[in-house]
């Protein structure tokens, strides 16, 4: 079987259809399953406690569940075969997009289940808290795709997850001034402004994911412009 020439290239949908099954198997399913399981456990905690559920506790447990899901997604672009499959004609952005397309519905399903586990009378506004979770997940994906684009590592997920955890623990609670608060209670007068900021974070994170989708940069070239007439790189 001779290699495919440009004259008889397959249709993109044929490549996508053929790739779906093996790509599904390359997903970091143990990390995603552990993150999803822990997230559901946290979201379901209020049901296990006696007494009326506390809305403030439920909100924070949902936030923690969202963080867990995001930590799982931080492993999405881990690829031990990265260097073996570097110079192939199927481009990396397509592979990345397919991974996202496979993982995001599962994460969304998991998040929906987490929301439903919270007792209705203590459930925070679904749209707002989903925005927070989406922004957190997008930040994790932005970190993961930036790590792939700017380093040679095959498994940056653990480092990205650790970084995200550190940021989640320190930035909203210790480093952000009160007027830029992100984690506010339902009914707080800063609620709408905080969610404006969450929306901004989501947009920025999605933009970073998109910008980091192309072929990885060469080591040490993160801040260096690519020489004219040379192709982008892969690794």
């Amino acid at each position, binding site marked *: 079987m001779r290699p495919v020439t440009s004259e008889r290239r397959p*249709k993109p949908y044929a490549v996508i259809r*053929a790739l779906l099954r093996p790509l599904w198997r390359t997903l970091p399913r143990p990390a995603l399953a552990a993150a999803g399981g822990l997230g559901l456990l946290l979201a379901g905690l209020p049901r296990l406690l006696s007494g009326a559920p506390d809305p403030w506790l439920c909100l924070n447990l949902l936030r923690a569940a969202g963080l867990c899901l995001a930590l799982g997604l931080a492993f999405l672009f881990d690829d031990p075969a990265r260097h073996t499959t570097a110079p192939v004609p199927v481009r990396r952005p397509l592979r990345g997009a397919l991974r996202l397309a496979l993982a995001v519905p599962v994460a969304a399903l998991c998040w929906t289940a987490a929301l439903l586990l919270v007792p209705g009378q203590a459930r925070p506004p679904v749209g707002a808290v989903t925005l927070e979770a989406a922004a957190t997940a997008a930040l994790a994906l932005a970190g993961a795709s930036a790590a792939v684009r700017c380093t040679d590592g095959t498994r940056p997920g653990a480092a990205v997850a650790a970084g995200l955890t550190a940021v989640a623990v320190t930035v909203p609670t210790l480093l952000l001034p009160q007027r830029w608060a992100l984690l506010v209670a339902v009914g707080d007068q800063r609620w709408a402004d905080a969610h404006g900021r969450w929306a901004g974070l989501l947009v920025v994170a999605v933009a970073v994911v998109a910008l980091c989708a192309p072929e990885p940069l060469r080591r040490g070239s993160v801040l260096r412009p690519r020489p004219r007439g040379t192709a982008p790189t892969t690794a």
Partner: protein
Amino acid sequence: MTVTVSASGLTLRYGGTAALDEVTLRLTEGVTGLLGPNGAGKTTLLRVLATAVPPDRGAFSVLGHDPSTTAGRQNVRRALGYLPQNPGFHPDFTAFEFVDYVAILKEMTDRGARHREVRRILDAVDLSEVRGRRIKRLSGGMRQRVALAAALVGDPGFLVLDEPTVGLDPEQRMRFRELIAQAGEGRTVLLSTHQTEDVAMLCHRVIVMAQGRLRFEGTPAELTAQAAGRVWSSAERDPAARAGWRTGLGTFRNVGDPPEGADLLEPTLEDGYLLTLDDASAEVAA
């Protein structure tokens, strides 16, 4: 012979270090060996030619395709098989599944034809018996053959192999030599290695690199000839020798500039390689 891969003035720097310094070369069909010490720039050169990293300066073409454009790069990749220095795998895949996955990434979408091709390649690298076994359960040599199969799938016209025999036992290395020799029939193979015996036995051309530059380009016989009259035997290590070691016979084999009346020995390719490197170091020092 027709030139299939050509490069001129390839330069690539990592910070202040020139990994490639004005490298110009031409490859033809058959196996070309790439020798050099660690840090010589061999892997960088292979990664550039495999379109895994772009050069800072210079140009190259592979089988008539210019990789400086997106379309040209895609065409190079369609004609390329690449075995990196430390090939990684999805350990839960079987050998068949992994090679099949790489075949899809090489745009082979017809399932039946692709599976026939994967079976053919696994048979060629002698992995048919274990094709259903998970990669994490394969030996190091078998994994290396899975990586070679992944490089060979799709019958690429240009095969880039980065130290494929490292860590293999002698029997596995012999088997690999056989496979690489077969792969070199009708296609261009660039083989980076530290094993001078592999080059002596497999390659019709040899390139020696040091400090990012090409120091020698020619046939293995020509590289061996670099050491003609510069290898001698003595009862003690000759202090004038650039390298010398006691052999199994109890005498010393010295390489360098022999004294008058020295007992000259037949040089090997390794002697030629060592002297070429030594001459290159002396040139840099000067």
